[in-house]
């Protein structure tokens, strides 16, 4: 048991190594990680995000597999207690129609986490990496097509595109599922269809960022002598990409994933605020903010905003701060030579 725990701990918090050890195993991730851990604020941010994702993940699973983690449902109305401040029965109080705020916050975290992960995995990783690799490795026409496509998507103002796409596609998309009979209806009622539509639309724009990064790294790696060697030995392109290039990209992919999770989560919150993202009754921070968006309301019922606002602010701050730190660390690591913190 102890061995297992220490193994896990070692994975996330490696002990100091002697300079010799460090030089002998160049790993971008490990270097960055160690540098990050030196900063106390960064550690706090990481812990907060870890807790956020843990709670969110649990909430998402709870929603999917129908087990309860809170005494109240997220849209359960307490008819006696409307707009109440924090109390023993409702730790964070109740909202405008008597729903428990703590429960809604937890499930909103679930929504955020669920969507952020789905968007990043599907849009960023699956599509983005695939296209980025293709563009970088094969170059030429394929490269042009993919990159030009990416540019076109970047030029379009994302908000209006979301507006347009969700408004025109949503009804048709839903009808598609309804046509599939009772399985489809269940999917819709669980909100999965809603979710999937959001992350499909997001993914449409998200892949560009990761594809670009992957592509530029691939271009560099492509020139490496061992790639030529593999090719001479007769390895297929597919094998080269998979066995030789991709593993070297893991570091950069991981960093990108980190940044993308943050922006995907924020995008979802923003869109739900405007009624374009997740729709009620499924909870989302955006919806919560939208409901209380009247400034005057907050003078009388501050508890409606304080806790959800605090959590989202910390979330945004953590990501922003970590990104800033990562930027600094990456620069110092590369300009001052490997291994130097």
């Amino acid at each position, binding site marked *: 048991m102890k061995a297992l725990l220490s193994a896990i701990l070692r994975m996330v918090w490696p002990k100091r190594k002697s300079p010799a050890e460090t030089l002998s195993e160049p790993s971008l991730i490990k270097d960055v990680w160690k540098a990050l851990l030196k900063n106390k604020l960064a550690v706090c941010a990481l812990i907060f995000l870890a807790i956020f994702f843990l709670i969110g993940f649990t909430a998402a699973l709870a929603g999917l597999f129908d087990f309860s983690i809170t005494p109240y449902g997220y*849209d*359960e*109305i307490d*008819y006696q207690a*409307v*707009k109440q401040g924090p109390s023993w029965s409702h730790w964070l109080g109740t*909202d*405008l*129609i*008597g729903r428990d705020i703590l429960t809604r916050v937890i499930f909103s975290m679930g929504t955020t986490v669920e969507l952020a992960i789905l968007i990043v995995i599907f849009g960023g990783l699956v599509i983005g990496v695939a296209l980025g690799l293709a563009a970088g490795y094969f170059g030429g026409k394929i490269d042009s097509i993919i990159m030009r496509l990416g540019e076109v998507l970047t030029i379009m103002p994302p908000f209006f595109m979301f*507006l347009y796409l969700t*408004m025109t596609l949503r*009804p048709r998309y839903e009808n598609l599922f*309804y046509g599939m009979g009772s399985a489809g*209806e269940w999917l*819709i*009622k669980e909100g999965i269809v809603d979710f999937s539509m959001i992350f499909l639309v997001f993914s449409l724009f998200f892949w560009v960022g990761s594809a670009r990064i992957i592509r530029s790294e691939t271009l560099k790696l492509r020139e490496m002598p061992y790639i030529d060697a593999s090719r001479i030995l007769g390895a297929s392109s597919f094998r080269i990409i998979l066995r030789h290039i991709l593993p070297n990209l893991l570091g950069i992919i991981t960093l990108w994933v980190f940044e993308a999770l943050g922006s995907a989560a924020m995008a979802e919150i923003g869109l*739900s*605020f*405007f*009624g*374009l993202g997740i*729709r*009620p*009754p499924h909870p989302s921070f*955006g*919806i919560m903010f*939208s*409901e209380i*968006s*009247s*400034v*005057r*309301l*907050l*003078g*009388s*019922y501050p508890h409606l905003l304080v806790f959800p606002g605090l959590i989202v602010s910390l979330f945004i701050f953590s990501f922003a701060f970590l990104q800033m730190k990562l930027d600094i660390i990456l620069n110092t690591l590369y300009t001052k030579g490997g291994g130097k913190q």
Partner: protein
Amino acid sequence: MKKTICLLAIIAALLFSACGKQEGAPTAVPAASYDYLRLAGGDPATLDPHLVTDVGSHLYVGKLFSGLLRMDLLAVDKNNNDDFTEAGEIQGNYEKNDVEKALREALPQGLAFFDAFKAKGREMRALYKLIPDIAKEIPEPVYNPDGTAFYTFQIRDEAKFRNGRNVTAWDFAYSFDRAADPRTMSSTAEMYLGDILGVWEMLNGREYGGKKLINRVYQFKAGEAFDISKEFVDLPGVRVIGEKTLEITAKNVLPVIFYWHMTYPVSFVIDKVQVDATRSWTENPNGTGPYWLEKKVVGQIVLRVNDLYYGFKPLIEKRIYDTGGGSTFSSYENNEIDMTGVGIADIQAVRDASSALAKEAYETVDMSTSYIGFNTKEAPFDDTRVRQAFAMAIDKDWLAEKVLENMAQVAHGVLPPGMPGYRPDLKGLEFNPQKAKELLAQSKYGDSLPRIKLTISGTGSAPSVVLQAIVKMWEDNLGAKVELDSIDYVTFLDQIKKGQFQMFSLGWVADYPDPEDFIDLKFHSKRSKANNETGYANSKVDELVELARTEKDAQKRIRLYQEAEDIIIEESPWLLLFHSKEIILVKPYIHDFFPSPMGISNDYMRFK
């Protein structure tokens, strides 16, 4: 060093941009004075009386323009003792005789009505009446053999446009023609001018009397002296008898309905010279109303009393509207404006009887009804029992009290308070989840409800919490999962006319104080989907409504509408929700303010 320079540069840039003066910027908010009234207002969608549909624009248009007839405040029963003998109760230039005559004659005829409100905690009633505006008198109809009637209006001698030009019958003919011209694209002309012969045909490009009706506009050649009598009169129902005499022929409608229709902005008179000259004439309207537009810039609108006004000159010389948005309540508390509406957030502060604000509060129930409409032609709402089940499954009292903090009154009937025929003791379909479940089980869809969508208009925010609560109550009490669907306003209006929604959230505000505006317009089976959105068809209701259209006895008419209302409540094509309340705060140095319904101007308001 570099960083500091950049920072300084940025700060300098910001400061300079803030210093720049714009052309026509709003003047700073003046301090309280007895010379002008400071209010918060919205930016009007339009100042063209023929295009006004929303309350926000009506606010200004009603003051800048006028027409043949209008509604006016006669007196206020301040002591709630049913007589108008106290000082200050009778308004303006009216006298006790006028009030008594109104109570004796106009009220039973349906030409006058009472509107109740609370002023500083005291219950009061205001008496409103239909009065001639630019017309000298309200003309009696003269009937033709074919059932149509003509009304001869005499125009006041002293009626002038703001630039001094006399108002003539030709000006009205021009205005009616223009409103009915399909190129004007007025969405209110059909309903309010549709009584006049030929209006419907001109709007829809049809023939009248074998000839296609087109609005011809006389164009003056260069150097030609302006002579309004050269204007073409194209509507067959409008005839110019003399310079100040206008004859309007209307289809067979009750005179009282015709009169009310003539009070709506689409019947106002506009200046041909202006309107023909430029599209942007509304920037500087040459109107006939009690005020003129002194200034209109981003963030501010200033209205000034029109010295040429033929009627009762408002006692407040100047009105400054702050259209900048933001919290009007805090502006009021900071003495930046003299009047404000109050929303849910601040209502506690106002309701606290000991606070200063409570002494400045006026509360009234709007003449409006909000509802959820069922498409009676589409499953599952083609079955009455399903509609009743949904209606009885929600606790409206809880919503009004706890969620809306009594900012709305539960609607048990179709007609709102203040409307003649309104019955305060109606029970309607009461909250009864048990009965609701039974009704649903008994219906055609008892075993399995099809997919149900509730469509709301307006994107840009999440659906209102009231609707979310209602959806949850349906789920808890009926086991029905309803999806909320938001659509933008324009598409919403468009699709509602085509009957494409199953269930939708809407409201209807009274345009004039006659139950016909609700019961006939929204529930007669022959009405188009633009008005009868639910597609409701009940032969008994049709019969009652058609009888009411020609019933001359006002009391009998009201009873016919009430009978129809009972059926409508029972069959529930509308899931009746609320009549919203309006709470207004007014500074104590303003006197004789009375919250008025339907955008009626209160010109008797004054400072000390």
